[in-house]
């Protein structure tokens, strides 16, 4: 009788393991939230990656240095026509809201400092410009085109990722709630 009991117990455990095995093929589900497979919009909620690159004056700077501010990160290049047409609105937004703690951070993608500096001078830009020759920010922010913009909150978390050219009204709508919440 004890041997029978042991036998039944072993059979029961074996059946349970087989059932659990079968279940394991149905229980994986999706990946963690905030995956970035489909463009910058998928980055909402993720921590903003930061890389040290050169400024127009040649010193090192990174997004990390603007922690504590609401940051509108704008990825651009001088050859990109929509970037060129969007730039005046970025400058206007920066002038309007810099006193409220907003930073507009332009990050040139893949070009030399000379090309970025010429563009900044031509467009009369006063907001900080970084020169990312290795396109690290563009890769990490899942850019599917230029321009690409990201709204980063003071804690360094991405609130929104936006592909394409923005109007001033769209920029204001994106940053105003964060500025008011400060």
């Amino acid at each position, binding site marked *: 009788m004890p041997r029978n009991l042991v036998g039944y117990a*072993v059979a029961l455990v074996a059946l349970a393991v087989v059932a659990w095995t079968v279940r394991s093929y149905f229980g994986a589900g999706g990946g963690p939230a905030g995956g970035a497979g489909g463009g910058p919009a998928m980055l909402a909620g993720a921590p903003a990656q930061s890389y040290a690159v050169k400024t127009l004056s040649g010193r090192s700077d990174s997004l990390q240095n603007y922690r504590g501010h609401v940051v509108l990160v704008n990825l651009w290049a001088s050859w990109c026509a929509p970037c060129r047409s969007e730039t005046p609105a970025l400058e206007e937004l920066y002038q309007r809201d810099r006193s409220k703690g907003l930073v507009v951070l332009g990050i040139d993608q893949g070009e030399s400092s000379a090309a970025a500096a010429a563009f900044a001078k031509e467009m009369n830009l006063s907001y900080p410009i970084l020169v990312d020759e290795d396109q690290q920010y563009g890769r990490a922010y899942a850019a599917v085109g230029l321009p690409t913009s990201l709204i980063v909150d003071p804690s360094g978390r991405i609130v929104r990722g936006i592909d394409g050219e923005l109007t001033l009204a769209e920029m204001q709508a994106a940053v105003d709630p964060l500025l008011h919440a400060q």
Partner: protein
Amino acid sequence: MRAASGNTALALGAAAAGIALVFAQDVAPAWTGYHTWQYSAALAIAAVAVGGYALGARKGEDGELGMRLTFAMTGALVIIAAGIASGLLGPDTETVQRAPGTVAPLPDVGAAAFFPVAGPATIASGDTSISLRRRNAGELEIAAGGRQFVGATVVESVPKPAAYVEARDPGGAHLTITQPTNPSFLSPVLLFPQEVPLANAVLPADAFATPALHRQIKAFYFSKSASTAARNHGIAGREAVLFAVDDDSGQLLPGGIGFALSGQAVDLGGVRLRPTLGTYPALVISAVPYPPALWLGGALFVGGLGYGFLRGSPKRRSAENGPPAAAIR
């Protein structure tokens, strides 16, 4: 050790064959044959042989040894069932290749794979670890060439050819590289996802653009063996990339085609290109038998064999039953 009957030997042989077939999934998980009906049928035949023997043995059809071996047979059945479940229910083997700096959701694994940003030095060394972040579980690092078991899957990191490309204009100014056909639009790392027949070989191929100069550039990866076969003395026996530089309308530019070795700059079609060749990992995800089922089944099988043969051996039995009758006389 007590001699086994013909039925016992047959059942043990079927159990061993079934277990070997199942463990093969852990040894070479990427083989597509595990998801065929032939593989499942082979395991099912082993299961019927083992299960039939175990049922008969429980009724005493194979004596005391058969009764004892039912534990081992149960363990074999658990392992074979895990193998059948993996073959029938597990997802087909999938290769996930992503650009550096991107994230890929892996629904079959219940995780997301983070492919780290890679510069020229990392591509050249090929030493890149990919991290898997799972819901309610710790982060897993998969080193280049390594593997990790995650639930009922195994995730392997397999090095694939890659090139970090730097582009400059004739004045030496750095140029933006874009990959309009790649989900990672701004990546200067080519992963050569296509295969193109060229120069009597099938070559990994990719394409990118330098919009500032209105150039579209095709890149074909030549491994050491492919470059030797190409009979070009400048690249023989070394890894190289063949670039073909077109204008915006897709017309090949004069002087727009040529080879570049790793780290070597070439001027082609008005653009200076310098590739750094190496590898960047892709993830190969394969279904495997659920590991806890293998551990339990394996323990039952090995323990059951010991219980059956060692406890059933004449020497052990004589010790248990006292001295033989001849010794008493």
